[in-house]
């Protein structure tokens, strides 16, 4: 039975940071509805508030006004239904790969925490590295552990803050493929922050373009390309170009404004 209530609902969220005497409006009337199982990319220039929005959904920050709801229940703080994957991994360096992944299940005092962790360790292809410490892993492996860690915690929403931004191009491509596979297998909902149009075009069902000063949603675009997508295909290029235009249109306007 499908739940008819909206899944992840960001409702008129505003966020103002006060730094000294300065007030910075990071988010301005942001509304976004994400359906269950959808892969949504947030894209925009730095300072557009995309990371702030992600942190509000994670519950790490409170909106100044408005709220975020999952199945109509407002988010009040961090919760295990929403798992954040950080750009710098944020693995617990004193724990082995296995213990990092089992951390969430252990908090719930599950007896089979290790079994759950093993399952997700297999899913990200790191079974052989269970007893390694994070410092013994490459960046790509660390990010796989971070993804397995939130999946093992049974997060239904994956919040990914430029997760592949620090990786080399080859590793990034590999992880993008693996993420799509995991997404298909687990049917999690993904909110993915990136500044790469190509990455967004490759991954997302929807690409939400945000603009800065104050941060707001500029456009919400469905990517109607069949999967698996091929970066070199003509229709992929068309989709990417049209997104790039949406992303840069306001950037080209701005110097004219300031000159006037």
């Amino acid at each position, binding site marked *: 039975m499908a739940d008819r209530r909206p899944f992840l609902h960001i409702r008129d969220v505003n966020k103002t940071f006060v730094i000294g005497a300065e007030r910075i409006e990071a988010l301005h009337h942001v509304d976004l509805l994400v359906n269950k199982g959808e892969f949504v990319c947030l894209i925009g220039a730095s300072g557009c508030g995309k990371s702030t929005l992600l942190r509000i959904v994670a*519950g*790490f920050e409170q909106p100044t006004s408005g709220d975020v709801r999952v199945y109509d229940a407002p988010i009040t703080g*961090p*919760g295990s239904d929403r798992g954040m994957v950080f750009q*710098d991994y944020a693995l617990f*360096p*004193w724990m082995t790969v296995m213990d990092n992944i089992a*951390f969430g299940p252990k*908090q719930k005092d599950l007896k089979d925490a290790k079994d759950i962790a093993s399952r997700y360790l297999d899913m990200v292809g790191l079974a052989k590295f269970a007893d390694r410490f994070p410092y013994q892993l490459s960046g790509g492996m660390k990010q796989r552990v971070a993804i397995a*860690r939130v999946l093992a915690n049974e997060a239904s929403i994956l919040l990914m803050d430029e997760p592949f931004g620090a990786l080399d191009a080859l590793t990034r491509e590999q992880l993008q493929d693996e993420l799509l596979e995991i997404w298909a297998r687990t049917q999690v909902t993904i909110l993915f922050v990136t500044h790469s149009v190509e990455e967004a075009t490759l991954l997302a069902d929807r690409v939400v373009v945000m603009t800065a000063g104050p941060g707001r949603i500029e456009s919400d675009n469905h990517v109607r390309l069949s999967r698996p997508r091929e970066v070199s295909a003509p229709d992929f290029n068309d989709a990417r170009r049209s997104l790039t235009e949406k992303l840069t249109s306001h950037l080209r306007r701005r110097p004219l404004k300031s000159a006037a």
Partner: protein
Amino acid sequence: MERLRAPVLERARALALGAGFPLALVVLWHVAVMASGTRLVPTPWMVALMMRDFAFGGVYDDAFSKTILIHLLASMQRVYGGFFLAVALGVPLGLAIGKISLFRQLLDPTLSLLRPIPVTAWLPLSMVFFGLGPRSAVFLVFLGAFYPVLLNTIFGVRSVDPRLFEAANMLGCDGARLFRQVVLPAALPSIFTGLRLGHSFAWILIVVGEMTGVPTGLGSVIMDGRTLSRPDLVITGMIIIGVAGFLCDRLIVALNNYVLRWSPQHRG
């Protein structure tokens, strides 16, 4: 073969330099005493004799013969009594001050005011509180070890990547569990720095602590040596404190290397 031999040679060189330098100092000491003809400073040989007597007797056969274990154990009891008290109080307090702003606001100003007071300045008051005896020594050792442990623990907590706490929160870990499972292990590298510093202060302060009229302990042996004008006894006490402190520091380093095996840059 080349690659195998190199580390062995390197280790031999490190050993030769590390052991050769103090040996050279001892030779220099001997030469200096002989050349100056002073009677105030004993030769290394006289100190060696004194140490033998202190350990096994049979040389002077006086009140200090064969008493090394009594004094060493008495001092170690006070050093580790004070040190473990400092750790037992300093680490939890440091975790709380580092993570909970209420504790920081409540305690930080007071501790900052008390910290600059030299431990030796507490000596008269400590004799009032704890009397003339070992408890006073334990208190001084505690004071000396407490601040390095506390401050390094606070620093350790404050310098943890806040994302680790966020990650723990989102995985359902908070409250007391957060302290045990995340705050404490994350701060461990810095805590170990505090332990090592505090531990060396504890050994430094044992002499001061045992000046307060206790009959046993290496500090009291040194004070006796001074009163009796027996510099060989003074230097014997100094050497034993140095060696005991060094060996115990190696134990802490070994523990450090095991506990922090996840962090190659924190291996001592």
